C-alpha cells in the first residue's frame, strides 16, 4: 500500500464509515475531521520523492482494473511536480472545509461530511490519475457529490442551479469521454504515460484534424470546469447558491480540475491543437480576466463578487498555460495553488459573514471593522492576497503568468494586466462597503471571530504568506514537471502533421481531377465501396485458404 493509495482511500473509507453511522450522530464530524487530517498528514509524505525529481511520477500505483482484450484499463495513479501541490491543497483544505461545515451547517451534517469526503476522494483521484479512463471516472466522481451538496444544502434557488451546474459540467465531460475513447482507438491504450510515450516517440501520429478535434473535446470539459468565458455562467449562480463549505471547495479546488486538465492533458497530448487554438484561448482568457473583473466591480452580493473575481483569476491560469512558456506554466500552477488558498479564504470568511448576518448582500453590511477588527484584518489579508499584493501568494503566480504572456505575446500581458488594476478596485470597494464606514444598527454588535473560527483561517493565512515570501520551497518540482510537459509538447509536435490538408481535398488533389459533379462522384464512390468490398473478400478468402491449409 503506497502512500498515494492511503491518501486516496482514507477519505473513501471514512465516507463509508460515516454512511454507516446513525443519522444525527456526533461522531460523523470527528470521523470526517480525523480522516481529513490523517489524509493531509499522509499526503505530506508525498512531497519527498517529488522534490527529488519533480519531472518523474513518483509514488505510482499501477493496478489492473478492467482487463479485457479490447480494453486494458489500469488503475494508474502518480504524483509529479504539477499535481503534488494540488493534492496537498486538496488535503489541506478538506479538514478546513470539514471544520468550517461543522460551524455553519446546522442539520443533516452526516450527509454533508460524507459527501465532502467523497468529494475529496474524487479530487485526489482526478489530480493523481495517470490513466485517461480512470481520470474520467474520478472526474465524474468528483462531480456528483458536489452536485448533491449544492442541490441538497444550497440556497433557495438550489434546484435549478444544481441542475445547471451538473448538466453544464457533464456536457463537457461527455465530450471529453468521446475524445478519450477516440484517442484510445488510435493509441490502443488509456494510459497517460504510454500515450505520451507513443506520441512523443512518433509511434502514433495524429493528424492535425484529429488533434484539433481531440483537443477541442478535452478542452470543452476543462473550459467548462474552469470556467472560461463564455461558459462561465454556471459559476456565479452555483457559488452563490452552494452552501458555504461547498463554495469554499468549489472555488478553491474544483476549479483547478479544469486548469489542471488543460496543463496535464491538452498541452502535451495535442500540441498542434493546443498551438492552433492557443491564440483564441488566450484571448478568451484575457476577456475572462477583464470581464470577470468588470462584473465583479458592480456585484451587490459578496459571494457573487468573489465568484466573478474567481473567473478573473482563473483567466490568468489559463492564459499562463497557453503561453507555452516555462514561466507561464509555472505561474499557472503556482496561481492554481495561490488562488485555491486566497479565494478559499475569502469564501471561508464570506461564509462566516453569511452565518452571522444571514445574507450576502453588500448593502446589508457596513462598518464591521469597528466591532470585529480581527475579522476585518483577516479579511483584509485574504483580500490583499487575492488582488495580488507582493509577499502574498497570488502575486507570484500572476507575475509569472504575465511574464510568460509577455514573452509569448506582449499584447496579452498588456490586456491581462488590466485585470490587476480592476481587481484592486472591486475588492477594495467591496471591502469599503462591507467592513469600513460607520457600523449600522445591524452590524454594531457584529461578533468577531471566535477561537473556533480562527482555526481554519490561520493555516490559510500562513500559507498565503509562506507561498508569497518563500516561493522556492514550492517552485522546484513545479518547474521541473512543467519543463517536462513543455518538452513533451515540443517533442510530440515534431511528429505531428503541422499543416495537413483536409482529407477530401487531399484525395482530390492526388487524383488530379479537381471537384467532380455530384452524381458522378456518388457513382465513383459506390464503385470505391465495391472495390473495398472486393478487396475485403479477396483478403478474407486468402485468409480462409491459408487457414484451411
Amino acid at each position, binding site marked *: 500500500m503506497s502512500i498515494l493509495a492511503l491518501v486516496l482511500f482514507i477519505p473513501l473509507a471514512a465516507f463509508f464509515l460515516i454512511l454507516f453511522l446513525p443519522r444525527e450522530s456526533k461522531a460523523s464530524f470527528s470521523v470526517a475531521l480525523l480522516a481529513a487530517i490523517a489524509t493531509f498528514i499522509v499526503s505530506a509524505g508525498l512531497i519527498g520523492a517529488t522534490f527529488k525529481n519533480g519531472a518523474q511520477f513518483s509514488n505510482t500505483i499501477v493496478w489492473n482494473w478492467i482487463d479485457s482484450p479490447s480494453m486494458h484499463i489500469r488503475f494508474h495513479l502518480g504524483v509529479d511536480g504539477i499535481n503534488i501541490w494540488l493534492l496537498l491543497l486538496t488535503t489541506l483544505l478538506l479538514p478546513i472545509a470539514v471544520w468550517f461545515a461543522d460551524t455553519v451547517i446546522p442539520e443533516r451534517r452526516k450527509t454533508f461530511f460524507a459527501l465532502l469526503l467523497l468529494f475529496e476522494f474524487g479530487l485526489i483521484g482526478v489530480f493523481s490519475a495517470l490513466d485517461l479512463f480512470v481520470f474520467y471516472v474520478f472526474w465524474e466522481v468528483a462531480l456528483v457529490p458536489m452536485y448533491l451538496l449544492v442541490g441538497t444544502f444550497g440556497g433557495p434557488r438550489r434546484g435549478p442551479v444544481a441542475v445547471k451546474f451538473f448538466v453544464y459540467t457533464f456536457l463537457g465531460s461527455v465530450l471529453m469521454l468521446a475524445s478519450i475513447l477516440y484517442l484510445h482507438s488510435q493509441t490502443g491504450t488509456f494510459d497517460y504515460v504510454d500515450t505520451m510515450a507513443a506520441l512523443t516517440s512518433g509511434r502514433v501520429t495524429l493528424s492535425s484534424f484529429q488533434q484539433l478535434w481531440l483537443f477541442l473535446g478535452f478542452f470543452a470539459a476543462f473550459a467548462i470546469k474552469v470556467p472560461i468565458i463564455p461558459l462561465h455562467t454556471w459559476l456565479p449562480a452555483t457559488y452563490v447558491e452552494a452552501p458555504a463549505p461547498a463554495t469554499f471547495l468549489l472555488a478553491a479546488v474544483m476549479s483547478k480540475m479544469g486548469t489542471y486538465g488543460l496543463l496535464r492533458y491538452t498541452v502535451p497530448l495535442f500540441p498542434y491543437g493546443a498551438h492552433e487554438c492557443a491564440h483564441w484561448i488566450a484571448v478568451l482568457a484575457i476577456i475572462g480576466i477583464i470581464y470577470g473583473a468588470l462584473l465583479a466591480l458592480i456585484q451587490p452580493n459578496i459571494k457573487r463578487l468573489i465568484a466573478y473575481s474567481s473567473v478573473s483569476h482563473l483567466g490568468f491560469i489559463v492564459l499562463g498555460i497557453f503561453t507555452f512558456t516555462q514561466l507561464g506554466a509555472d505561474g499557472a500552477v503556482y496561481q492554481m495553488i495561490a488562488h485555491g488558498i486566497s479565494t478559499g479564504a475569502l469564501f471561508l470568511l464570506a461564509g462566516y459573514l453569511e452565518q452571522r448576518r444571514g445574507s450576502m448582500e453588500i448593502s446589508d453590511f457596513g462598518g464591521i471593522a469597528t466591532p470585529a477588527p480581527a475579522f476585518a484584518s483577516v479579511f483584509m489579508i485574504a483580500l490583499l492576497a487575492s488582488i495580488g499584493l507582493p509577499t502574498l501568494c497570488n502575486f507570484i503566480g500572476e507575475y509569472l503568468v504575465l511574464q510568460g504572456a509577455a514573452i509569448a505575446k*506582449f499584447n496579452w500581458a498588456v490586456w491581462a494586466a488590466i485585470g490587476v488594476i480592476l481587481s484592486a478596485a472591486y475588492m477594495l470597494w467591496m471591502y469599503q462597503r462591507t467592513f469600513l464606514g460607520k457600523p449600522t444598527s445591524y452590524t454594531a454588535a457584529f461578533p468577531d471571530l471566535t477561537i473556533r473560527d480562527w482555526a481554519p483561517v490561520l493555516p490559510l493565512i500562513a500559507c498565503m504568506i509562506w507561498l508569497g515570501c518563500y516561493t522556492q520551497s514550492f517552485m522546484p518540482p513545479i518547474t521541473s514537471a512543467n519543463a517536462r510537459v513543455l518538452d513533451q509538447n515540443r517533442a510530440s509536435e515534431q511528429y505531428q502533421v503541422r499543416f495537413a490538408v483536409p482529407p477530401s481535398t487531399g484525395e482530390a488533389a492526388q487524383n488530379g481531377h479537381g471537384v467532380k459533379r455530384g452524381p458522378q462522384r456518388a457513382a465513383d464512390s459506390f464503385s470505391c465501396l465495391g472495390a473495398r468490398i472486393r478487396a475485403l473478400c479477396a483478403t478474407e478468402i486468402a485468409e480462409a485458404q491459408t487457414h484451411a491449409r
Partner: protein
Amino acid sequence: MNLWLILLFPLIGFVLNGLFGKRLGKAAVTFFAIGSVTLSFFYVLYVLSRLWPLNTAYSEHSFTWIQSGFLQVGFDLLVDRLSAVMLLIVTGVGLVIHIYAVGYMAEEDGYYRFFSFFNLFLFFMLILVLSSNLLLLFVGWEGVGLCSYLLVGYYFGENWATNAANKAFIVNRIGDFGFMLGMLLTVVVFKTLDFGKIAAAVGTMPVEPTVGVITAIALLLFVGATGKSAQFPLYVWLPDAMAGPTPVSALIHAATMVTAGVYMVARTSFLYSHAPLAMNVVAIIGLFTAIFAASIGITQNDIKKVFAYSTVSQLGYMFLGLGVGAYSAGIFHVMTHAFFKALLFLGAGSVIHGLSGEQDLRHMGGLRKAMPITCWTLLFACLAISGIPPFAGFFSKDAILSAAYAHAPWMFWIGAITAGMTAFYVFRAWFLAFFGTYRGHHHAHESPLLMTLPLVVLAALSAGGGFINIPGFLSQAYPSLAEHENRTPMIISVIFGVAGVALAWLLYIARPVLADAWQHAAGPLYTLVENKYYVDEIYGALIVKPLEGISSLVLWRGVDEGLIDTAFVSGLARGARGWGGLLRQLQSGRIRNYATWVLAGSLLVIFVLGVVGGGR
C-alpha cells in the same frame, strides 16, 4: 554585512505592534515603534560607515526568491551611493516623524495600529530602496502603496477617508500597471531583472533616437512613477490622501513614498539615458505637473491640500530634473524636499493639532503668538521651498533649473514661473495662518515638545541641508552633464521666488482686499482652478461612471445574464426543447410513417457511405 537587519527591525516592530499592540499598552507600542526605527537608523549609519566611501556598489544575496526557467529573482539587497542617500532620508526623516507622531497620535484610538502600519511602511520603503532588482523594488513599491492605503484610511469609520484610501490604492494600481508592464518587457528584452545586469546589457546597446524597446520600457516604468509620485495625470490621489493623519502625510506623502518614483527613475537611469525621447517625456510631464499643481495650490484653502499640491508640484520639479538629465539634482531635491516638506506638513499638523483638527486656512490667522515655534520653524520651510538662498531648497532647485536651462530654456522659464507661484502659495498659507486676526473657533495652543522638537530638527535641516553636496556625492554615478557656470538662471529664479513672496505679502498682509478683488476679476478661471480643473469630476464622468454603467448594464445584465445566460445557455435549452417539439411531430404514432423514415434514413446512410466512404 547583513543588510537584511535594516529591514528586520521595522518588520519586528510591525509584527509585535500589529499582533499584540492592542494588549501591550501605549508605552510598549511606542517603545517598539520608535525603537525599531532607531535601531534601523543606527544600523544604516553603521553599515554606511563600514562601507564608506561606497565607491562601488555593495550587494548581498539573501536567498533565491523565484526561480523559473531562465528567470531568477533573488532577495538581493544593494547599497550604493544612491540608496545610501535614500536610506538616510528614509530612516532619518522617518525617525523624526515617528517621534513627532508619538505626540500627534497620543489621543487616537488605534495608536498601535498606526504605529504598526508605520513600521510596516518603513519596512517596505527600505525594501524599495535596498532592492537590487526590479521585482523586489516592485515588492516595496506595492507594499508602500498598501501602507499608504491603510494609513490614509486610518479613520476607516469615515467615508471620506476610505474613499481617499481606495482612490490612492487604485490610482497607484494604474501606475503599477505601467510599472508591471515595464518590468515584463524588461525581462522579455534582457532576460533578467537585476539592475546591474540590465545596465550592462543596456550599455552595449545604442542610444535610441526614436521609440524603441528601451524607450518603451522607460516610458512604462515612468507610468509607474507617475502613479507613485503623483504626476499628471495620476496625481489625483495625493491631495485626497491628506485624509490620513498628518504624520502620514509628512512621511509617506511628502518625504519618502512619493519620491519612490524619482528614486526608481534615478535607479534605472541607464535606461533613460539610452532613451532621450522618454527623458523628454519625463521632463515635460514633470514640468507640466509642477505648474499645473502649483496653480491649483494657489487657490486651495485647506492647509494640507495646499502643501499636497505643492508636493505634487515639487515632485514635478524632481522629474524635470531627471528628465533633463540631472539625476543627481533630482535626488538632491528629493532630499531637501524631504526636509522642508516634512517640516511643512509637521508644522501644518502642529497647527491642526493646536486647533483641534481645524484645517481650513480661512478659519486660522494670527497664530504666531499662540504657537511661535511652529510659526518660525515653518518660515524656514517656506523659505526653503521658495528657493530663497541659502536655504536648502535654493540649492536643489537651482541645480534643477540650471540643468533645465541648459537643456531647453523654455523649460527653465516655466520652472521659474512655477517657483514664483510656489513661493506665493506657500507664503499665502503661512501669512493666512499666522498673521492677521484669528478667525477660528477653537482655542489655539502650542504643541508639546515631542512635536516641536522634530520641527526644530527639520528646520535646521531645511536651513542647512542645501550645503550637503549631493550632486557631488552622486557624481560618480551621475556625472554632471555640463559645468553650468551660468549664473543667470539662478538669479532669475531667485527673483521669481522673492516676487512670489512679495506678492503673497501684498495680497494677504498689506492689502487683503486686493485678494478678493483679483479673485472676482478672475471669475470663472478662479472657479476652475479652485475646483482643481475638475479633473476628478472628468475622471469620474469619463472613466468611473461609464465603467460602472457598462459593467452593470451592458456586461452584467446585458451580456452575462441576457446574452450568455438567457440567450445562449437557457436559449440552448429552450432551443433544444423547441426543436424537440418540432421533431416530436415526427413521432405521430403512425408506425408506417416511422418505417418510411427508417427507409429514407437507410437510403441516406447508404449514400453517405458511398459518397464519404465507409469504414475500412
